[in-house]
């Protein structure tokens, strides 16, 4: 099974608008999911310009699905859903 790819935008805009709180997300993932998820901190994904600045911070799942106003709770919940669906 391919790992679920989670890209956290750490561009300065997202960082200022909340991504700083997502930095520790790797430690918050439940142990049983850890080998199924790949978390990557990325430089600016430019979603704050293409989408909407107010939607920052942005997280991208599997290269296509975009989550706006991401919080660690929301990201963890989505990871759980994706892992569940893929299993």
């Amino acid at each position, binding site marked *: 099974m391919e790992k679920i790819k989670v890209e956290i935008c750490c561009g*300065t*805009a997202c960082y*200022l608008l909340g991504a700083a709180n997502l930095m520790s997300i790797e430690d918050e993932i439940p142990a049983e999911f850890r080998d199924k998820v790949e978390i990557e901190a990325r*430089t600016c994904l430019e979603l704050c310009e293409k989408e909407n600045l*107010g939607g920052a911070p942005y997280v991208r799942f599997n290269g296509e699905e975009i989550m706006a106003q991401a919080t660690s709770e929301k990201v963890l919940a989505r990871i759980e859903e994706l892992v569940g669906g893929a299993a």
Partner: protein
Amino acid sequence: MLNGSTFIRRELMIRIVRAFDDGTLETELDQIPIKLRPKNSVASRCCVYHDRAILKYRLMALLGVSVEDETDESKSLSAYYAEKAWGGGVAGHADAPHTPLSVCGPACSGCPDAKVVSTPNCRGCFARPCVYNCPKKAISVVGGQSVIDQSLCIKCGKCITACPYHAIVKTTVPCEDACPVGAIRKNEHGVAEIDFAKCIFCGKCFAACPFAAVMERSQLVDVLAAMKRGEKLVAMVAPAAARQFPGKIEQLLAACAKAGFGDVMEVALGAEMTTAHETEEFIERMEKDPKTFMTTSCCPAWVNLVGKHLPALVDHVSLTPSPMVYAREIVKAKDPDAKTVFIGPCVAKRSEAKRKDVDYVLSFEELGAILAGRKIDVIACEPWPVERPANPTARNYAKSCGVTEAVLTEATAKIPGFKLDAKQINGIDRKTCAMVKLYAAGKMPVNFLEVMACPGGCQNGPCSLA
């Protein structure tokens, strides 16, 4: 700390930088409130029109305008922008605000006066510890519920700790609660107002207000305009910058250079000079009078506090300039025409900069907005080739105890076995203020008093990011 207040402030800052760089700021300014709160969108307050009105005031403050000084309500943001004559070569500090804070009346919620009240959590119990513990006999039980007679209550809080159901709470006015000197009060219209004769610009009300009604008068656009005019601006980055942005301090310096600053430096280099001179001054003072004491001068809110409220301490404040002032000297020695920009986490530095001829002050938030607007990621920057890194004790100035340690290290190196009897005030609040007043009245227990207005030091300043 991120919350709704910091989010909207940072979002507006980034929008300003982007529009400025696109050359559309003057026309876009008045559109921003409507863009952010179009009709039928979800309002944060009563309606989108109230939200828009406050967004306009936020943008005014970000243009550096004092919200209180508004005389013409119909004046547009673009008119304020044009009036400042940016691009016309107005010297930065001549335009700098004397009062870096501004209260936006329409944003103020006019929080009800602080009182101790009983909530429906009360079970009207048999023991009634609230009634028994109240020293003023202000509590009675009516219809199975405790009731506090506000005319008798002295808000001592004994009932709050006594109640096993946490049924009694104290309501607060957050800005008044946060202000260590009683400078912010509701006026006759029930709206918070700062008494600038008392205000020490510590920024605690600014950080505390849950309605973000206290605003900073920014120099963001002044800095952007000076850069555009081609002036050489030198970014002087405060020691508190460590860990504010992802990446190393040298990477942050590189990011500043990339963003358009003509040169960059760590204010910690100025802190090294402060340490050397302050240590010398301290030794001298002790030789003259072993029973005297000295207090630090690097925290501008503390210096303001002494100047405005503690006249008895004035002679005890170190005469040594702050790291920012020495950093300015270093810059000016290298290039007398360079303009200096202090970048830090502090509101009060804006008042010190005005006094000490530092041209501009940016907060870490404002710097972040410039970096975000110009798509610069600190972690993607190659570290700046500093001539030499500042020494670790100087970089520690941003932490409580940092100055004490720096002076002690320096003094011990000069005079082996040097004794420094030091105490730290780690955060100015009403309690520590009362304590310092006792010190001022001649009850100083030590010979070296370090005071930091922010708990933990500058790194937790009101405009810090982390």
